[in-house]
């Protein structure tokens, strides 16, 4: 026959040439096999059984073996193999359990030679003996492997895998009598072809089915297996117990594995589900594929190296009905795209950074590769081809220690703790926060607060610095250039702040005046009575703050703010049971947040009124807040983008309704989430809780309601309390009894982690004032932090 005349030899290796190419098949392929001289490939599937010739530029269909009017199930192939000694001989495994051999030398159209129907279930695999012409092995779902002598009508021996389905059988390349079989239950068995009664050895290779195995073409003891557990393992079979020497973790179950010719460490895999790529791995570097072929659009079902001594051509068939020839030089190399730089933060803010040595040393030239690398054994030395190895990247690792003060996020923590977000009049909040920022050496932020106060609290206050400010506002988005220039104005602003406060105090008796003015102010919402009450309240706060300014600030303030946070927290817990219903409503505001809101809203106009009384004639009250909103919005976005989401959220909360409608809910929610996340990373639970509480996004406020479950063990029997309530359902004692008063604790429960006794917070505190031992009398020296 014509096609047989074109015989190429393995010697020289230059006989094969070609390019990456593909052809469409009519139907999905299940398996492919190539003839010994690498000129033809057979594709088999449920509805296809064809031979293609491999030409320089294309695949050419040579023969369709699927003949006959009524295609029988014998043509529905699960596997196919071309004999490596006899060019005319093929064998297929049919899904109905038949093993069929084909003789291409037959003159008739139907090339079917022999039909063995001894298997009861689907035959998963057929395998010719590598050197013996007439020996064929099959493995089937029914748990049997059968060895056929093609000169006889039936099998010569049957090997029982003990009723587990056989997924793959492979003759050893080197040991004449040995073959390996892999099973659905995760085992691999080694058999001697002469002894059908018992396997030579067996070991468990994978959890779940082992879909494939492949003997190393050169190294006699190596067997690669691939399984549903997504692993490829290489076993050394020369020792007494099979030893796992390499393991590659892939991303999907491994359907086929094939050692790469002439490359000791390389093997190709494809997967059965989900992943369509073919990977070539260097088993010594199991974390990244050496090369990848990404052409297929559906799972790859068959892979085969085109020639048993040529590592550059890979053929593959796929469910997407294509047959590909991949050139190794066209493969994509994941390692090239991988980022050889690594970056990691240490526990204390240290930064470790690994990068290519060349980058770090500033030497842009790659170091020349030294040919005598001892890790690459002899077969490389014939053709030291650089593209055949992993790109060698030697990296340098540098560790940057953060200096104790400067790089830390101290400012963040302090700011978070010290900022006041609610509970006071707007202007004071701004002042306070501005001061905090200033003390932490953040003038720009400080100035922003001051300006916010000016913009929103009171139009009249702009009388003197007004024009000045407006011109600055144009620059706001460019904050970088802003800070230096602002230093000067700031003191001035501060001074004016002081003045306004004095005004405020002076005006204290003038309540009636304020009330009458209330009506004029468009922002007023509270009733008059309420306003009076609030006013008194605010004055007190104001006094506090004011007096404090005269004392040493940093330390004092810390003490001041901490209890402030603790109180609402405890309050919140008691409130909670009734809250969830509220949340469902559209109003979305938790009662707390809205309470604060109301407070702020009532107060601002009042405070500002005192100033309005002075300078009202100068400006119409309509102008300010609306006018500034776009600018403030831009500013907030700017801060958020700069990474200072703290500022954005704080301002958002403090400004409340003044700005909220200007910014879309999603952005707000995003900011809140980021800030809360940050706070929680710094373990600032109280602050984060306050922020959640004060936020107005329904998505945020409901955070407080989620995962509020606390799992508790019974203090008595030490078993988990499986249900709500105070009684342990196992030992039937009240689980959380106060050790001091012996009543059930239904609120804050504090306990010693050493002896797990405890009780009401205040009881235990009182007890510990006079005692150091456990109130339960267990003798433990209790420690509370």
């Amino acid at each position: 026959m014509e096609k047989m005349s074109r015989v190429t030899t393995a010697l020289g290796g230059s006989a094969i040439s070609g390019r990456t190419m593909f052809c469409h098949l009519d139907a999905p392929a299940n398996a492919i096999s190539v003839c010994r001289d690498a000129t033809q490939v057979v594709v088999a599937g449920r509805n296809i059984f064809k031979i293609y010739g491999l030409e320089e530029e294309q695949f050419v269909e040579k023969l369709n073996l699927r003949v006959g009017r009524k295609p029988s199930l014998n043509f529905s192939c699960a596997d196919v193999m071309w004999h490596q000694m006899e060019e005319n001989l093929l064998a297929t495994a049919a899904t109905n359990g038949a093993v069929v051999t084909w003789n291409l030398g037959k003159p008739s159209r139907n090339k079917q030679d022999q039909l063995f129907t001894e298997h009861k279930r689907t035959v998963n695999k057929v395998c010719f003996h590598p050197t013996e012409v007439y020996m064929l092995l099959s493995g089937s779902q029914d748990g049997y492997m059968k060895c056929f002598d093609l000169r006889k009508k039936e099998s010569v021996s049957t090997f029982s895998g003990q009723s587990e389905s056989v997924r793959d059988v492979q003759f050893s390349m080197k040991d004449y009598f040995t073959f390996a079989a892999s099973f659905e239950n995760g085992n691999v068995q080694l058999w001697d072809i002469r002894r059908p009664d018992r396997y030579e050895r067996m070991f468990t290779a994978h959890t779940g089915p082992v879909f494939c195995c492949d003997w190393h073409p050169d190294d006699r003891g190596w067997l690669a297996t691939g399984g549903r557990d997504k692993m490829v393992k290489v076993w050394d079979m020369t020792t007494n117990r099979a030893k796992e020497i390499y393991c590659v973790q892939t991303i999907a179950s491994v359907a086929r594995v094939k050692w790469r010719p002439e490359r000791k460490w390389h093997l190709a895999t494809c997967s059965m589900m989900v992943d369509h790529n073919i990977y070539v791995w260097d088993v010594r570097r199991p974390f990244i594929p050496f090369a990848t072929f990404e052409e297929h659009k559906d799972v790859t079902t068959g892979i085969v190296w085109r020639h048993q001594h040529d590592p550059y051509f890979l053929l593959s068939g796929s469910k997407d009905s294509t047959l590909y020839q991949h050139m190794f030089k066209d493969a994509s190399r994941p390692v090239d795209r991988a980022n050889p730089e690594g970056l990691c933060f240490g526990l204390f803010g240290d930064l470790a950074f690994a990068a290519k040595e060349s980058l770090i040393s500033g030497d842009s030239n790659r170091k020349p590769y030294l040919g005598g690398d001892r890790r690459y054994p002899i077969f490389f030395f014939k053709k030291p081809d650089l593209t055949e190895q992993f790109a060698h990247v030697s990296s340098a690792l540098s560790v940057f220690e953060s200096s104790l003060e400067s790089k830390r996020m101290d400012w963040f923590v302090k700011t978070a703790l010290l900022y006041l977000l609610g509970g006071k009049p707007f202007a004071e909040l701004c002042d306070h926060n501005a001061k905090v920022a200033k003390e932490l050496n953040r003038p720009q932020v400080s100035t922003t607060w001051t300006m916010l106060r000016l913009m929103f609290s009171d139009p009249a206050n702009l009388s003197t610095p007004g024009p000045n400010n407006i011109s600055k506002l144009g620059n706001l988005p460019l904050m970088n250039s802003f800070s230096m220039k602002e230093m000067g104005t700031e003191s001035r602003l501060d001074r004016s702040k002081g003045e306004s406060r004095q005004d405020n105090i002076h005006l204290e008796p003038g309540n009636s005046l304020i009330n009458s003015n209330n009506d004029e102010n468009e922002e007023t919402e509270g009733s008059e009575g309420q306003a009076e009450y609030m006013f008194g309240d605010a004055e007190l706060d104001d006094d506090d703050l004011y007096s404090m300014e005269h004392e040493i600030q940093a330390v004092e303030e810390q003490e001041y703010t901490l209890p402030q946070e603790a109180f609402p927290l405890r309050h919140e817990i008691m409130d909670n049971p009734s809250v969830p219903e509220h949340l469902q409503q559209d109003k979305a505001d938790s009662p707390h947040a809205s309470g604060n809101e109301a407070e702020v809203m009532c107060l601002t106009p009042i405070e500002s009124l005192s100033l309005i009384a002075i300078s009202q004639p100068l400006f119409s009250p309509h102008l300010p807040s609306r006018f500034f909103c776009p600018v403030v919005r831009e500013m907030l976005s700017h801060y958020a983008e700069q990474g200072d989401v703290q500022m954005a959220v704080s301002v958002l909360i403090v400004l409340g309704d003044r700005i909220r409608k200007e910014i879309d809910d999603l952005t707000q929610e995003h900011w809140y989430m980021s800030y809360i996340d940050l706070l929680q990373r710094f373990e600032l639970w109280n602050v984060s809780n306050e922020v959640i509480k004060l936020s107005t996004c329904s998505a945020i406020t409901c955070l407080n309601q989620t995962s509020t479950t606390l799992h508790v063990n019974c203090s008595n029997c030490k078993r988990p309390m499986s249900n709500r309530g105070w009684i342990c359902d196992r030992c039937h004692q009240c689980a959380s009894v106060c050790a001091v008063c012996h009543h059930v604790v239904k609120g804050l429960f504090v306990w010693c982690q050493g002896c797990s006794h405890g009780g009401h917070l205040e009881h235990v505190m009182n007890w510990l004032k006079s005692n150091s031992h456990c109130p339960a009398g267990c003798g433990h020296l209790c420690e509370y932090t």
Partner: protein
Amino acid sequence: MDIQDQDATARWEALGSRDPRSRGTAMEHISQEVMQRVESIGPIPATVPSPVATAGHPTSDLNDILARLLMLSKRCPFDDVRERCVWLLQNVQDFGVRIPRPLGNGPSRFIPEKEILQVSKVDPRTQSIFEDAFAALGRLDNISLVMGFHPQYLESFLRTQHYLLQMDGPLSLHYRHYIGIMAAARHQCSYLVNLHVNDFLQVGGDSKWLNGLDGAPQKLQALGELNKILAHRPWLLTKAHIEHLLKAEEHSWSLAELIHAVVLLTHYHSLASFTFGCGITPEIHSDGGHTFRPPSLSQYCVCDIANGNGHGHLEERRGNHQVSEVSGEVEVLMERMKQLQECRDEEEASQEEMATRFEREKTESMLVATAEDEECVPSRDVSRHFEDPSYGYKDFSRRGEHVPTFRVQDYSWEDHGYSLVNRLYPDVGQLLDEKFQMAYNLTYNTMAMHKDVDTTMLRRAIWNYIHCMFGIRYDDYDYGEINQLLDRSFKVYIKTMVCSPEKTTKRMYESFWRQFQHSEKVHVNLLLMEARMQAELLYALRAITRYMT
């Protein structure tokens, strides 16, 4: 009140503890409370015409507790609790308060109660499985009791179900129960619906959802279509359906959620089959499981509650009668199996023959009439949980358009389905895999009174016949075997149970395999259930795979 409730629940749950002492104290608490209530009510005058009219708050509350005690007296795996409950109920009765008695005979309508394992007499292994189940759920449901025939399987089943409903998963707890309700309602299985309505409310589900699918979030509503197709005609599932679910703006499902939902749906569809197939009766403590009416003369007396006797004598006698009539049945079946085994090697059926055999079996399966008479009475209006009630099983092969046969060799559970499930919902693939294997390989090598029989063939025939009804074909199976091994009445039963389980009747259950034991019939039911689940899963997973590629 709230706290009281909580205490009460905690106490009931404590009964599941393995520690006898804590069970004892819990029981003590309960009996105190019950006696207290009983005393406060005083004896109910016997002249009260109907108990429903007087069912004020305290009485109905008490009745609930009594019903629960009754359930425990029968179903609790711990004898101490059972004894105490019986004792307590008797005490209550002595006070002149009417106590409930169970309706029906044991967990199944089809199987006489004494055939089913008594919770009091089981081997240690089953005992520990029951105890685990009891501790986890606070009840031992009738399904578990019936499955107790096959403890190995039961263990795997309960582990899977527990994981699906309680453990880590992409869906929230009340979603899971709601999906269970949706799936069970599709087959009008009021037993499962009731069970999960309770669970649904217990995990904090919104009772508005229970008014019908319209009340549920849109996301769940979208699942209705999938539920419908999957339950009745899974072969119609395409990737378009999947896409529709995954790309629905804010109501869209994630892939992991979808897998979880699909597994739940198929689990409950097939469990509904089992429930009907074994005639599972309502739980004793739920509606329809007990009555406060005094027994009429024709029925057995109250003291039987203590002894656990039902009335099954009549049927039993009838059953014996039938046995003598058809005693040859099993032998014939065994003979056929042997013949098939032997002649397989000799006679070679041609390929065309094999193909036509599958087609013939497929066509014949649809000629098997399903419903003979309709006697099912849905006690609760379950139809509101699904839409389009007219949508039912249509025969795979009869419809006009041609749907290509599903070839198992191209998409099998072991190779493809497992990988997909395990990828998106870790560990569940493994659990399901174990469960399928357990069901498929379960055998005691017995057939009726014969021992040491290889039943592989029979089991495979049943499994493949079910898949055949769903249009799933095994290339390596000779569908002629089915005709040899499964007789007509058995086919009727299988078909009914798998395709429209709500139409299963006691007569069907009794008319197939008359000489086989009940445990073997339950075994068949397990096979049917798992085969059906796998068939549905295969179609659903294939559609998802197609969507992904």
